[in-house]
Protein backbone atom coordinates (compact mmCIF):
# COMPACT_ATOMS: atom_id res chain seq x y z
CA UNK A 1 0.00 0.00 0.00
CA UNK A 2 1.13 3.45 -0.78
CA UNK A 3 0.91 5.81 2.23
CA UNK A 4 2.46 8.88 0.75
CA UNK A 5 0.37 12.01 1.06
CA UNK A 6 0.69 14.14 -2.01
CA UNK A 7 -0.98 17.39 -2.93
CA UNK A 8 -3.72 15.64 -4.93
CA UNK A 9 -4.90 13.30 -2.16
CA UNK A 10 -4.78 15.96 0.60
CA UNK A 11 -6.86 18.34 -1.55
CA UNK A 12 -9.35 15.54 -2.15
CA UNK A 13 -9.57 14.84 1.60
CA UNK A 14 -10.12 18.52 2.46
CA UNK A 15 -12.79 18.70 -0.23
CA UNK A 16 -14.54 15.68 1.22
CA UNK A 17 -14.50 17.21 4.73
CA UNK A 18 -15.96 20.47 3.37
CA UNK A 19 -18.66 18.53 1.50
CA UNK A 20 -19.50 16.66 4.71
CA UNK A 21 -19.95 19.89 6.69
CA UNK A 22 -22.03 21.40 3.88
CA UNK A 23 -24.25 18.28 3.82
CA UNK A 24 -24.88 18.66 7.54
CA UNK A 25 -25.96 22.28 7.23
CA UNK A 26 -28.06 21.45 4.17
CA UNK A 27 -29.78 18.60 6.05
CA UNK A 28 -30.54 20.96 8.92
CA UNK A 29 -31.99 23.60 6.61
CA UNK A 30 -34.10 20.93 4.89
CA UNK A 31 -35.34 19.65 8.27
CA UNK A 32 -36.35 23.17 9.33
CA UNK A 33 -38.14 23.71 6.01
CA UNK A 34 -40.01 20.40 6.37
CA UNK A 35 -40.97 21.30 9.92
CA UNK A 36 -42.47 24.63 8.92
CA UNK A 37 -44.26 23.34 5.80
CA UNK A 38 -45.45 19.82 6.55
CA UNK A 39 -45.64 19.50 10.32
CA UNK A 40 -49.01 21.10 11.01
CA UNK A 41 -49.64 22.43 14.49
CA UNK A 42 -52.81 24.13 15.60
CA UNK A 43 -50.73 27.21 16.41
CA UNK A 44 -52.31 30.29 14.85
CA UNK A 45 -50.65 31.40 11.64
CA UNK A 46 -49.64 34.97 11.14
CA UNK A 47 -49.06 35.90 14.79
CA UNK A 48 -45.91 37.99 14.99
CA UNK A 49 -44.70 38.41 18.59
CA UNK A 50 -42.53 41.38 17.64
CA UNK A 51 -45.62 43.44 16.68
CA UNK A 52 -47.28 43.32 20.12
CA UNK A 53 -46.48 44.33 23.68
CA UNK A 54 -49.02 42.97 26.13
CA UNK A 55 -49.81 44.63 29.41
CA UNK A 56 -52.05 43.57 32.28
CA UNK A 57 -53.42 46.12 34.71
CA UNK A 58 -55.36 45.36 37.88
CA UNK A 59 -57.84 47.66 39.55
CA UNK A 60 -57.95 46.12 43.04
CA UNK A 61 -60.71 48.49 44.16
CA UNK A 62 -63.01 46.83 41.61
CA UNK A 63 -62.27 43.21 42.52
CA UNK A 64 -65.30 41.60 44.16
CA UNK A 65 -63.55 38.34 45.01
CA UNK A 66 -65.92 36.07 43.08
CA UNK A 67 -63.07 33.77 42.03
CA UNK A 68 -64.26 33.40 38.43
CA UNK A 69 -60.79 34.36 37.13
CA UNK A 70 -58.98 31.69 39.14
CA UNK A 71 -61.53 29.06 38.11
CA UNK A 72 -61.48 30.10 34.44
CA UNK A 73 -57.66 30.00 34.41
CA UNK A 74 -57.67 26.41 35.68
CA UNK A 75 -60.21 25.34 33.05
CA UNK A 76 -58.57 27.23 30.20
CA UNK A 77 -55.03 26.04 30.83
CA UNK A 78 -55.67 22.56 32.21
CA UNK A 79 -53.99 23.44 35.51
CA UNK A 80 -54.01 20.31 37.72
CA UNK A 81 -56.42 19.94 40.63
CA UNK A 82 -55.10 20.94 44.01
CA UNK A 83 -53.08 23.91 45.25
CA UNK A 84 -51.78 24.96 41.83
CA UNK A 85 -52.77 28.36 40.48
CA UNK A 86 -51.56 30.53 37.64
CA UNK A 87 -53.74 33.32 38.97
CA UNK A 88 -55.45 33.59 42.33
CA UNK A 89 -57.17 36.10 44.63
CA UNK A 90 -55.89 37.13 48.04
CA UNK A 91 -58.03 38.70 50.73
CA UNK A 92 -56.34 41.27 52.97
CA UNK A 93 -57.99 41.97 56.31
CA UNK A 94 -56.57 45.00 58.10
CA UNK A 95 -57.59 44.85 61.79
CA UNK A 96 -58.08 47.88 63.99
CA UNK A 97 -55.11 48.63 66.27
CA UNK A 98 -55.19 47.28 69.82
CA UNK A 99 -56.74 49.83 72.18
CA UNK A 100 -54.08 51.98 73.78
CA UNK A 101 -51.41 51.23 71.15
CA UNK A 102 -50.04 54.13 69.15
CA UNK A 103 -50.33 52.25 65.83
CA UNK A 104 -52.77 53.30 63.13
CA UNK A 105 -53.71 49.70 62.28
CA UNK A 106 -53.08 46.09 63.20
CA UNK A 107 -51.08 43.49 61.31
CA UNK A 108 -52.70 42.40 58.06
CA UNK A 109 -54.28 38.95 57.83
CA UNK A 110 -53.96 37.48 54.34
CA UNK A 111 -55.81 34.40 53.14
CA UNK A 112 -56.60 32.74 49.83
CA UNK A 113 -58.61 29.55 50.42
CA UNK A 114 -58.48 27.46 47.24
CA UNK A 115 -56.95 30.43 45.47
CA UNK A 116 -60.26 32.21 46.04
CA UNK A 117 -61.87 29.93 43.46
CA UNK A 118 -64.90 29.10 45.59
CA UNK A 119 -65.32 32.37 47.42
CA UNK A 120 -64.14 33.46 50.83
CA UNK A 121 -65.59 32.44 54.22
CA UNK A 122 -66.57 34.99 56.84
CA UNK A 123 -63.45 36.41 58.48
CA UNK A 124 -62.59 34.83 61.83
CA UNK A 125 -62.11 38.29 63.30
CA UNK A 126 -65.33 39.98 64.56
CA UNK A 127 -66.60 42.76 62.33
CA UNK A 128 -66.03 45.57 64.85
CA UNK A 129 -62.33 44.69 65.08
CA UNK A 130 -61.73 45.03 61.33
CA UNK A 131 -60.58 48.36 59.96
CA UNK A 132 -61.26 47.33 56.38
CA UNK A 133 -60.75 44.41 54.00
CA UNK A 134 -60.19 44.07 50.27
CA UNK A 135 -59.27 41.60 47.53
CA UNK A 136 -56.13 41.57 45.38
CA UNK A 137 -55.92 39.40 42.25
CA UNK A 138 -52.42 38.01 41.71
CA UNK A 139 -50.61 36.57 38.71
CA UNK A 140 -47.18 36.58 37.05
CA UNK A 141 -45.94 40.17 37.27
CA UNK A 142 -44.25 40.10 33.83
CA UNK A 143 -41.00 41.53 35.21
CA UNK A 144 -38.68 43.55 33.02
CA UNK A 145 -35.79 41.98 35.01
CA UNK A 146 -37.18 38.56 35.84
CA UNK A 147 -35.24 36.69 38.58
CA UNK A 148 -36.83 33.43 37.37
CA UNK A 149 -35.07 33.71 34.01
CA UNK A 150 -31.68 34.47 35.56
CA UNK A 151 -31.65 31.28 37.61
CA UNK A 152 -32.81 28.79 34.96
CA UNK A 153 -29.81 26.49 34.37
CA UNK A 154 -30.99 25.27 30.96
CA UNK A 155 -32.39 28.50 29.49
CA UNK A 156 -35.89 27.02 29.32
CA UNK A 157 -37.64 30.20 30.45
CA UNK A 158 -37.48 33.47 28.57
CA UNK A 159 -39.25 36.74 27.84
CA UNK A 160 -40.98 36.66 24.47
CA UNK A 161 -40.73 39.82 22.32
CA UNK A 162 -44.38 40.58 23.17
CA UNK A 163 -43.60 40.78 26.89
CA UNK A 164 -44.91 37.39 28.03
CA UNK A 165 -42.58 35.40 30.30
CA UNK A 166 -42.84 31.84 29.04
CA UNK A 167 -41.43 28.36 29.71
CA UNK A 168 -40.37 25.97 26.97
CA UNK A 169 -41.98 22.75 28.25
CA UNK A 170 -39.62 20.60 26.19
CA UNK A 171 -36.53 22.16 27.76
CA UNK A 172 -37.60 22.54 31.40
CA UNK A 173 -35.88 19.94 33.59
CA UNK A 174 -38.11 20.64 36.62
CA UNK A 175 -35.32 21.73 38.96
CA UNK A 176 -37.67 24.31 40.53
CA UNK A 177 -34.98 27.02 40.85
CA UNK A 178 -37.34 29.48 39.15
CA UNK A 179 -40.12 28.64 41.60
CA UNK A 180 -37.84 29.66 44.46
CA UNK A 181 -36.56 32.72 42.62
CA UNK A 182 -39.97 34.23 41.82
CA UNK A 183 -40.69 36.81 44.54
CA UNK A 184 -44.40 36.78 43.70
CA UNK A 185 -44.95 33.02 44.00
CA UNK A 186 -46.31 32.92 40.47
CA UNK A 187 -44.75 29.58 39.48
CA UNK A 188 -45.39 25.98 40.50
CA UNK A 189 -44.19 22.51 39.54
CA UNK A 190 -46.85 20.62 37.61
CA UNK A 191 -47.12 17.24 39.38
CA UNK A 192 -48.09 15.47 36.14
CA UNK A 193 -45.45 16.81 33.74
CA UNK A 194 -42.82 17.60 36.42
CA UNK A 195 -42.06 20.89 34.70
CA UNK A 196 -42.46 24.44 35.97
CA UNK A 197 -45.62 26.25 34.94
CA UNK A 198 -46.88 29.79 35.13
CA UNK A 199 -49.26 32.31 33.65
CA UNK A 200 -48.66 32.55 29.91
CA UNK A 201 -51.14 35.45 29.56
CA UNK A 202 -53.20 32.71 27.83
CA UNK A 203 -50.72 32.79 24.97
CA UNK A 204 -52.93 30.47 22.87
CA UNK A 205 -55.78 32.97 23.22
CA UNK A 206 -53.97 36.29 22.76
CA UNK A 207 -52.21 34.96 19.65
CA UNK A 208 -55.69 34.25 18.21
CA UNK A 209 -57.02 37.72 19.04
CA UNK A 210 -58.95 36.64 22.14
CA UNK A 211 -58.61 38.04 25.65
CA UNK A 212 -56.98 35.93 28.39
CA UNK A 213 -59.57 33.74 30.14
CA UNK A 214 -59.37 35.64 33.46
CA UNK A 215 -59.95 38.98 31.70
CA UNK A 216 -62.78 37.45 29.66
CA UNK A 217 -64.78 36.26 32.68
CA UNK A 218 -64.04 39.06 35.18
CA UNK A 219 -67.49 40.54 35.91
CA UNK A 220 -66.17 43.75 37.49
CA UNK A 221 -63.60 44.81 34.90
CA UNK A 222 -60.94 44.59 37.58
CA UNK A 223 -58.48 43.17 35.05
CA UNK A 224 -57.59 45.41 32.12
CA UNK A 225 -55.58 43.83 29.33
CA UNK A 226 -54.24 45.42 26.19
CA UNK A 227 -51.57 45.76 23.57
CA UNK A 228 -49.27 48.77 24.02
CA UNK A 229 -48.16 48.63 20.37
CA UNK A 230 -51.73 48.65 19.02
CA UNK A 231 -53.66 50.97 21.32
CA UNK A 232 -57.17 51.80 20.15
CA UNK A 233 -58.50 55.36 20.40
CA UNK A 234 -60.55 54.63 23.54
CA UNK A 235 -58.48 51.74 24.83
CA UNK A 236 -59.44 50.70 28.37
CA UNK A 237 -55.73 50.28 29.08
CA UNK A 238 -54.95 53.90 28.25
CA UNK A 239 -57.96 55.06 30.26
CA UNK A 240 -56.78 52.97 33.19
CA UNK A 241 -53.34 54.46 33.54
CA UNK A 242 -54.50 57.98 32.72
CA UNK A 243 -57.19 57.85 35.40
CA UNK A 244 -55.40 55.94 38.16
CA UNK A 245 -52.24 56.32 40.18
CA UNK A 246 -50.58 53.00 39.60
CA UNK A 247 -47.99 51.02 41.51
CA UNK A 248 -46.24 47.65 41.23
CA UNK A 249 -45.72 44.88 43.76
CA UNK A 250 -42.41 44.75 45.70
CA UNK A 251 -40.79 47.66 43.83
CA UNK A 252 -37.74 47.50 46.16
CA UNK A 253 -36.63 44.26 44.47
CA UNK A 254 -35.92 46.04 41.19
CA UNK A 255 -37.76 43.44 39.14
CA UNK A 256 -39.62 46.21 37.27
CA UNK A 257 -42.97 44.43 36.97
CA UNK A 258 -45.15 45.30 34.02
CA UNK A 259 -48.38 44.34 35.82
CA UNK A 260 -49.68 47.64 37.16
CA UNK A 261 -51.97 47.83 40.18
CA UNK A 262 -54.35 50.55 41.26
CA UNK A 263 -56.15 50.79 44.57
CA UNK A 264 -53.67 48.86 46.70
CA UNK A 265 -53.01 49.36 50.38
CA UNK A 266 -49.54 49.56 51.91
CA UNK A 267 -49.78 46.01 53.31
CA UNK A 268 -49.97 44.36 49.88
CA UNK A 269 -46.82 42.45 48.94
Amino acid at each position, binding site marked *: MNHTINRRSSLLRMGAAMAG*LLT*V*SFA*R*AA*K*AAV*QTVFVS*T*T*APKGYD*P*TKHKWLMCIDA*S*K*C*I*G*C*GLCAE*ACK*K*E*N*GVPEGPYYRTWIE*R*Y*IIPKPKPGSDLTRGEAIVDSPNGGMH*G*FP*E*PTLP*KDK*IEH*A*FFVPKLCNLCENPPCIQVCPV*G*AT*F*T*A*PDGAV*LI*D*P*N*YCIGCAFCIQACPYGARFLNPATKTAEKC*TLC*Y*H*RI*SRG*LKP*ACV*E*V*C*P*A*EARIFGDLKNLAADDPLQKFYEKNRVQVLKPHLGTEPRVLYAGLDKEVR
Partner: protein
Amino acid sequence: MHRFKLPPQILRLILVAMAIVGSYLVARSFLVPPSFGEYGWYRGDALKLIAARDPVFAGKQACDECHSDILHKLAKDAHKTLSCEGCHGVSREHCDNPDILPVKATGSHCIRCHEANLARPAWLKQIVVKDHYGPKCTECHLPHQPTQSP
Protein backbone atom coordinates in the same frame (compact mmCIF):
# COMPACT_ATOMS: atom_id res chain seq x y z
CA MET B 1 19.80 26.33 2.08
CA HIS B 2 18.07 25.50 5.25
CA ARG B 3 14.40 24.65 4.66
CA PHE B 4 11.94 25.18 7.55
CA LYS B 5 10.25 21.96 8.64
CA LEU B 6 7.35 21.89 11.10
CA PRO B 7 8.27 19.66 14.03
CA PRO B 8 6.08 16.53 14.01
CA GLN B 9 4.80 17.07 17.59
CA ILE B 10 3.50 20.57 16.68
CA LEU B 11 1.82 19.15 13.60
CA ARG B 12 0.13 16.51 15.75
CA LEU B 13 -1.07 19.18 18.22
CA ILE B 14 -2.54 21.23 15.38
CA LEU B 15 -4.32 18.15 14.00
CA VAL B 16 -5.75 17.26 17.44
CA ALA B 17 -6.93 20.86 17.96
CA MET B 18 -8.57 20.85 14.54
CA ALA B 19 -10.27 17.53 15.30
CA ILE B 20 -11.65 18.87 18.59
CA VAL B 21 -12.92 22.10 17.03
CA GLY B 22 -14.34 20.16 14.07
CA SER B 23 -16.19 17.63 16.22
CA TYR B 24 -17.55 20.53 18.34
CA LEU B 25 -18.85 22.28 15.23
CA VAL B 26 -20.43 19.07 13.88
CA ALA B 27 -22.04 18.26 17.24
CA ARG B 28 -23.27 21.85 17.61
CA SER B 29 -24.86 21.86 14.16
CA PHE B 30 -26.82 18.74 15.10
CA LEU B 31 -27.76 19.71 18.65
CA VAL B 32 -28.86 23.35 18.28
CA PRO B 33 -32.57 23.39 17.35
CA PRO B 34 -33.32 25.04 13.98
CA SER B 35 -35.46 27.82 15.50
CA PHE B 36 -32.92 28.75 18.20
CA GLY B 37 -32.20 32.48 18.12
CA GLU B 38 -35.25 33.36 16.03
CA TYR B 39 -36.34 35.92 18.66
CA GLY B 40 -33.61 35.57 21.25
CA TRP B 41 -31.53 33.13 23.25
CA TYR B 42 -34.21 30.43 23.15
CA ARG B 43 -36.18 28.17 20.79
CA GLY B 44 -38.53 30.23 18.63
CA ASP B 45 -40.70 27.15 18.12
CA ALA B 46 -41.51 27.15 21.85
CA LEU B 47 -43.82 30.13 21.22
CA LYS B 48 -45.72 28.12 18.61
CA LEU B 49 -45.82 25.12 20.93
CA ILE B 50 -47.34 27.19 23.75
CA ALA B 51 -49.77 28.88 21.35
CA ALA B 52 -50.89 25.53 19.88
CA ARG B 53 -53.31 24.84 22.75
CA ASP B 54 -56.99 25.09 21.80
CA PRO B 55 -58.94 27.85 23.60
CA VAL B 56 -61.61 26.58 26.00
CA PHE B 57 -63.58 29.77 26.54
CA ALA B 58 -65.25 30.92 23.32
CA GLY B 59 -65.49 34.60 24.27
CA LYS B 60 -68.35 37.07 24.20
CA GLN B 61 -67.90 37.79 20.47
CA ALA B 62 -68.70 34.15 19.66
CA CYS B 63 -71.94 34.38 21.71
CA ASP B 64 -72.86 37.56 19.84
CA GLU B 65 -73.02 35.65 16.54
CA CYS B 66 -76.29 33.91 17.53
CA HIS B 67 -77.50 35.56 20.74
CA SER B 68 -77.06 39.23 19.84
CA ASP B 69 -80.60 39.99 21.12
CA ILE B 70 -79.68 38.93 24.66
CA LEU B 71 -76.31 40.68 24.50
CA HIS B 72 -78.09 43.83 23.34
CA LYS B 73 -80.36 43.70 26.40
CA LEU B 74 -77.39 42.96 28.64
CA ALA B 75 -75.37 45.91 27.34
CA LYS B 76 -78.05 48.38 28.47
CA ASP B 77 -78.16 47.31 32.11
CA ALA B 78 -75.96 46.96 35.17
CA HIS B 79 -74.68 43.53 34.14
CA LYS B 80 -73.10 44.87 30.94
CA THR B 81 -69.58 44.00 32.11
CA LEU B 82 -70.42 40.34 32.72
CA SER B 83 -69.17 37.65 30.39
CA CYS B 84 -71.70 35.07 29.18
CA GLU B 85 -69.42 32.20 30.11
CA GLY B 86 -68.99 33.47 33.66
CA CYS B 87 -72.50 32.21 34.51
CA HIS B 88 -73.32 29.83 31.64
CA GLY B 89 -70.04 27.90 31.75
CA VAL B 90 -67.50 27.21 29.01
CA SER B 91 -69.28 27.24 25.66
CA ARG B 92 -66.66 26.26 23.12
CA GLU B 93 -68.46 22.98 22.32
CA HIS B 94 -71.80 24.78 22.18
CA CYS B 95 -70.33 27.15 19.56
CA ASP B 96 -69.21 24.30 17.32
CA ASN B 97 -72.40 22.28 17.84
CA PRO B 98 -75.45 24.20 19.15
CA ASP B 99 -77.10 20.91 20.21
CA ILE B 100 -74.61 20.60 23.07
CA LEU B 101 -76.16 22.94 25.61
CA PRO B 102 -74.00 24.88 28.06
CA VAL B 103 -74.56 24.58 31.82
CA LYS B 104 -77.79 26.18 33.02
CA ALA B 105 -77.09 29.21 35.19
CA THR B 106 -78.65 28.92 38.66
CA GLY B 107 -79.06 31.05 41.77
CA SER B 108 -75.68 29.93 43.05
CA HIS B 109 -74.15 32.04 40.28
CA CYS B 110 -75.91 35.14 41.65
CA ILE B 111 -74.76 34.47 45.20
CA ARG B 112 -71.20 33.97 44.06
CA CYS B 113 -70.89 37.73 43.55
CA HIS B 114 -73.75 39.19 45.56
CA GLU B 115 -73.45 37.44 48.93
CA ALA B 116 -72.37 39.99 51.53
CA ASN B 117 -68.67 39.92 52.33
CA LEU B 118 -66.74 42.48 54.27
CA ALA B 119 -63.95 42.59 51.72
CA ARG B 120 -66.30 43.31 48.80
CA PRO B 121 -66.32 46.92 47.61
CA ALA B 122 -69.26 49.03 48.81
CA TRP B 123 -70.49 49.86 45.27
CA LEU B 124 -71.44 46.21 44.71
CA LYS B 125 -75.04 45.31 45.67
CA GLN B 126 -74.81 42.63 48.33
CA ILE B 127 -77.35 40.54 50.28
CA VAL B 128 -77.15 38.35 53.35
CA VAL B 129 -78.58 35.19 51.80
CA LYS B 130 -80.25 33.81 54.92
CA ASP B 131 -82.06 37.11 55.58
CA HIS B 132 -83.08 37.64 51.95
CA TYR B 133 -86.41 36.55 50.51
CA GLY B 134 -86.90 33.59 48.34
CA PRO B 135 -85.70 30.26 47.12
CA LYS B 136 -85.25 31.51 43.56
CA CYS B 137 -83.51 34.73 42.50
CA THR B 138 -85.31 34.88 39.14
CA GLU B 139 -88.73 35.26 40.86
CA CYS B 140 -87.90 38.92 41.44
CA HIS B 141 -84.75 39.66 39.37
CA LEU B 142 -84.02 39.29 35.67
CA PRO B 143 -80.40 38.15 35.36
CA HIS B 144 -79.85 39.91 32.02
CA GLN B 145 -81.63 43.12 33.16
CA PRO B 146 -80.95 43.19 36.90
CA THR B 147 -82.60 46.59 37.47
CA GLN B 148 -85.93 45.33 36.10
CA SER B 149 -88.44 42.87 37.55
CA PRO B 150 -90.17 40.14 35.60
